[in-house]
C-alpha cells in the first residue's frame, strides 16, 4: 500500500469517492438529530416546567412528587449515554418492531436527551425573578398564565441557549448511537475511519460534524442575542 502523506489524505477526504459514502450518512444524522430534537424539546420543556413548578418554592408546590421526578431524572443523567441507549433499544423494538437503524435510534436518543434538556430548561426558568411571578399572582394570574405569559417568555433567550447546548449534545450522542447500529456520521467515522484505517473518510465525517455544530452554535447565539438586544437587556 505504501505510505500515504497527509496531503494525500486531505485531498482524498474531499474526493467524490469519499463523499459518496459521507453524504448519505449526513442525511441519516440530520434525520436522527431533527426528530430527536423535536421529541427532546417537546418532552424536555414539559419536564423542565414540571420540575420548576412542583418545587416546594414553585407556583404549584408538590414536594414529594418533585423529589421522585427529580430522582428519576438524576438516575437517567448519572448513567452514561451509551448504557441508556443500550437499555432503551428493546423499547424501540417494542414500539417500532426493530432495534437498529436511524428510526429505532431516535427513541433511545430522546430518552437520553430529555432529562438533560429538562434540567437545562429548569435552570433557565429559575432565572426568572420571583418578583415578576409575584406581580402576576397579585393580578390574579392562574398558574397556566404564569407559565405561558411570564416564565417562558421571560426565560426565552436563556431557553434558546439551553436548546443550542442540547442540540449539540444530541449530535454527539447521535454519533455515539451510530456506532451501536443507528448509522449516520458516527457510524461512518468508526466503521471506515477507525476500523479500516480510512483516515480520509474519518476526516471528512469529522469535518462535517464540526461544521454542523459550529453552525448550530452560531445560530443559537445569534438568535438569543437578537432577542436580548430587542428587549434592550444587553
Amino acid at each position, binding site marked *: 500500500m505504501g505510505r500515504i502523506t497527509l496531503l494525500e489524505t486531505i485531498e482524498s477526504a474531499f474526493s467524490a469517492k469519499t463523499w459518496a459514502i459521507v453524504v448519505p450518512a449526513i442525511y441519516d444524522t440530520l434525520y436522527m438529530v431533527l426528530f430527536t430534537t423535536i421529541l427532546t424539546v417537546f418532552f424536555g420543556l414539559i419536564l423542565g416546567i414540571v420540575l420548576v413548578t412542583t418545587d416546594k418554592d414553585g407556583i404549584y408546590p408538590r414536594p414529594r412528587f418533585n423529589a421522585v421526578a427529580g430522582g428519576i431524572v438524576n438516575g437517567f443523567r448519572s448513567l452514561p449515554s451509551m448504557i441508556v441507549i443500550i437499555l432503551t433499544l428493546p423499547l424501540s423494538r417494542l414500539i417500532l418492531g426493530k432495534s437498529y437503524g436511524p428510526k429505532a435510534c431516535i427513541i433511545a436518543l430522546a430518552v437520553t436527551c430529555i432529562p438533560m434538556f429538562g434540567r437545562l430548561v429548569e435552570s433557565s426558568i429559575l432565572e426568572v425573578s420571583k418578583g415578576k411571578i409575584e*406581580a402576576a399572582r397579585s393580578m*390574579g394570574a392562574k398558574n397556566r*398564565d404564569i407559565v405561558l405569559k411570564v416564565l417562558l417568555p421571560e426565560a426565552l433567550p436563556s431557553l434558546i441557549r439551553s436548546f443550542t447546548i442540547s442540540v449539540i449534545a444530541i449530535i454527539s450522542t447521535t454519533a455515539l448511537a451510530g456506532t451501536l447500529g443507528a448509522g449516520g456520521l458516527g457510524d461512518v467515522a468508526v466503521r471506515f475511519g477507525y476500523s479500516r484505517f480510512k483516515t480520509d473518510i474519518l476526516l471528512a465525517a469529522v469535518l462535517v460534524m464540526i461544521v454542523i455544530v459550529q453552525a448550530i452554535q452560531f445560530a443559537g447565539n445569534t438568535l438569543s442575542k437578537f432577542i436580548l438586544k430587542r428587549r434592550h437587556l444587553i
Partner: protein
Amino acid sequence: MARYSTHTTEFEAKHCDAGHFIRISNLRKTFRARDKNFAVLKGIDLEIDRGDIFGVVGFSGAGKSTLIRCINRLEEPDEGEITIGETEITGLSKQELDRYRQKIGIIFQHFNLLDARTVAENVAFPLEIAGERKDRIASRVKEILELVDLSDKTDFYPGQLSGGQKQRVGIARALANNPDILLSDEATSALDPQTTLSVLDLLKDINEKLKLTIILITHELNVIRYICKNMAVLEDGLIVEKGSVRSVFGAPQSETAKLFLRIDAGFATFGWQDGEGI
C-alpha cells in the same frame, strides 16, 4: 383559612361596622423556618377609609411588607380577618381570590415589569388575565398610558426606560383593571428625590381622579408628609400608633415615630460635615 376567636367576632360586631372601607382585625402571621418560629405580625387592627392615602411606616423588619402582602393574600395570614367593602378577603376561595385580586392593584420597589413585553403589552397583561377582549384592551391601554403620561413610550421595552418611567408603567399596570385599592410597597425607594416627587404627584392625582384608596408603605418620612392623610406606625409586628399624619407626628408616642422624627430633624440640623460624619 380564616380562624378567629369568638372574642374577636363579638368585637367586630360592636366596633367595626362603622363604615370603614378596609377593616383588618387581629391579623397574625408567623413564619416557620426549620424548628424556629418568627412571629412577624402579632395581631394587627386597622381601619382605612375609602379614598384615603394611608401610610404605614416602620423600620426594617417591622413587618410592613408582610402586612401589605396579606391584604391581597400573597401571604396567607395565620389568623385574623381582612374585609374590603362587603368582602371578607380572608374567606375567599382560590378562584374568588383570583377574581378579587384584579380589584387590588400593587406596585413594587423593583417594579417587576416583564422584560419580554413592551410598555403597552405590560399594561395589557392584567387585562389579558381578566379575559378582556382585544379591542377593549387596546383602548384601555391607550387611555391608561395617557393618564400616567407615557403615551410616547408605548412600544418601548422596560430595558429602555428610566426608573421613574418604569414605576409609571407599574402604576399603569396596577390601574388597568380599575381597582378599588392600590397597594404600594416602597414604590419610590429606588428612585431619586425628583423622580420620587413626580411619582407621588401621580399617585395623588389618581387618588383624586379615580377615588382610589391607596395604602403606602415607606420608611421615608417625607413621603408620608407629602401625600398621606392617615397613617399607622408598625413596630415589631404591632401597630403602636395610628391616626392622621398631623396627629401622629405632631405628638409622637411610639419609639419608632420619635426616632423617625429625630433622625429626620437630625440630618437637617447636622449641617455640612464634609465627609467627617458627626
